[in-house]
């Protein structure tokens, strides 16, 4: 039942085929990726939450959240990610619950090297395995807490096993069937051990959309340290300030960004809202005017006109 439907839906078949083909063409993860020195690592202090029936998802998530010093209780996590009708937990819901627990989920590369690097940074990795085979799937979440390259073993907090030692070869088979899916939870402001720019930006944007503006602000600041002057985190940080109603900080951030790139109409639109939020309606209308005259895109025109109407309504209702 679980996952079988997924294999047969058309939309899923194409990526599955792609993985199959590219899986043959590229080198799959192997022990050879691991660094020569320090051939074993284990985060022995990772807590253990033995799972109840079908609840490997909540148990694994609680493990990584607790390791990240988030304030969580297993029961609470169960109520946020366990899906009774499916007798399991969805990957998206694990990510969503990480955000509501004040952390940022980040999908790591599907390689042993990526897991190794996260372990070195002190972060265990939550992984999806298929312990069965494609036709008889048994989807399982576990937490990688160690790798012993010397002995060819991987150490997991898994199910009711506090320290499950699996041969790396076996692990890689089960992980491949789980599409090499693995995530870490970051404290907002922390960068993953091996950071991918666009994946990190998407992860922070998800925080913004989940209403975690303060966390997003911290994560964008970290991004600016990594990629100074990059327009995406500059825009994101300004948006976080606007969401937090810190209008002064938002105004400065939008102006700095527009000085760098005058053509960013989304930033000008949001600057207008920021000015309106401070009661500076004339200045707000002026910015919208500038944006409208520079714009050539019909979708953006609709947005700008909407904002213009919003500001006009606020002026009319005498909101000062």
């Amino acid at each position, binding site marked *: 039942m679980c996952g079988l439907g997924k294999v047969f839906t058309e939309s899923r078949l194409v990526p599955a085929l792609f993985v199959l083909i590219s899986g043959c063409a590229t080198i799959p993860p192997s022990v050879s990726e691991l660094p020569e020195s320090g051939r074993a690592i284990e985060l022995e202090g990772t807590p253990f939450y033995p799972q109840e029936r079908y609840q490997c998802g909540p148990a694994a998530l609680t493990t990584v959240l607790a390791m990240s010093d988030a304030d969580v209780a297993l029961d609470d996590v169960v109520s946020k990610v366990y*899906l009774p*009708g499916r007798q399991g937990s969805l*990957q998206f819901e694990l990510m969503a619950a*990480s955000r509501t627990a004040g952390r940022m989920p980040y999908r790591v590369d599907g390689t042993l090297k990526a897991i190794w690097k996260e372990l070195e940074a002190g972060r265990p990795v939550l992984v999806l395995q298929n312990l069965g085979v494609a036709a008889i799937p048994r989807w399982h979440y576990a937490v990688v807490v160690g790798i012993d390259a010397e002995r060819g073993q991987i150490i997991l907090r898994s199910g009711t096993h506090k320290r499950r030692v699996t041969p790396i070869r076996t692990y890689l088979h089960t992980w491949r069937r789980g599409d090499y899916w693995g995530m870490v939870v970051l404290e907002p402001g922390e960068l993953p051990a091996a950071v991918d720019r666009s994946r990190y930006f998407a992860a922070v944007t998800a925080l913004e959309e989940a209403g975690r503006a303060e966390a997003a602000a911290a994560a964008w600041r970290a991004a600016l340290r990594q990629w100074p002057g990059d327009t995406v985190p500059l*825009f994101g940080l300004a948006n976080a300030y606007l*969401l937090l109603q810190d209008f002064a900080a938002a105004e400065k951030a939008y102006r700095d960004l527009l000085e760098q790139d005058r053509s960013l109409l*989304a930033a000008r639109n949001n600057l207008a809202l920021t000015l309106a939020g401070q009661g500076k309606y004339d200045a707000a209308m002026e910015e919208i005017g500038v944006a409208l005259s520079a714009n050539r895109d019909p979708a953006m025109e609709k*947005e700008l006109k909407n904002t213009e109407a919003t500001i006009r309504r606020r002026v009319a209702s005498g909101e000062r």
Partner: protein
Amino acid sequence: MGLHRARGALLRLVSVAIICMGFTQAAPAGMIGTASLLDDESRAASVSRVEILLARDDVAGQLAAFGVDRSLVVERLNGLSNAELLELEGQLDSQIAGGDLLGVIGAVFVVLLILELVGVTDIFKSI
């Protein structure tokens, strides 16, 4: 018939209104989100607020249908990004649910296969 339809529309409106209320930190009307600058091809960057709300409503209904307590649905929705909401819309049953459950159809298949091999059934030869 007409009344029935009107009632359906009203119920939908009310449920959307409830879902809207659940927003932890509503963006100010007119704000363009950071997703608009992301260089991915996901639909989420260009969809309207109304579409997101409809997806939210749909996912809320699916979560409830799969046994999530109504009082917890909104909180669970709040952690999802727009792209995730759109991907889950109408698709909750085809997502992988990790939970150590052995695939039922698969298990049935194995049982049938064994029955076939020991000569109890004759399903596969006739196909």
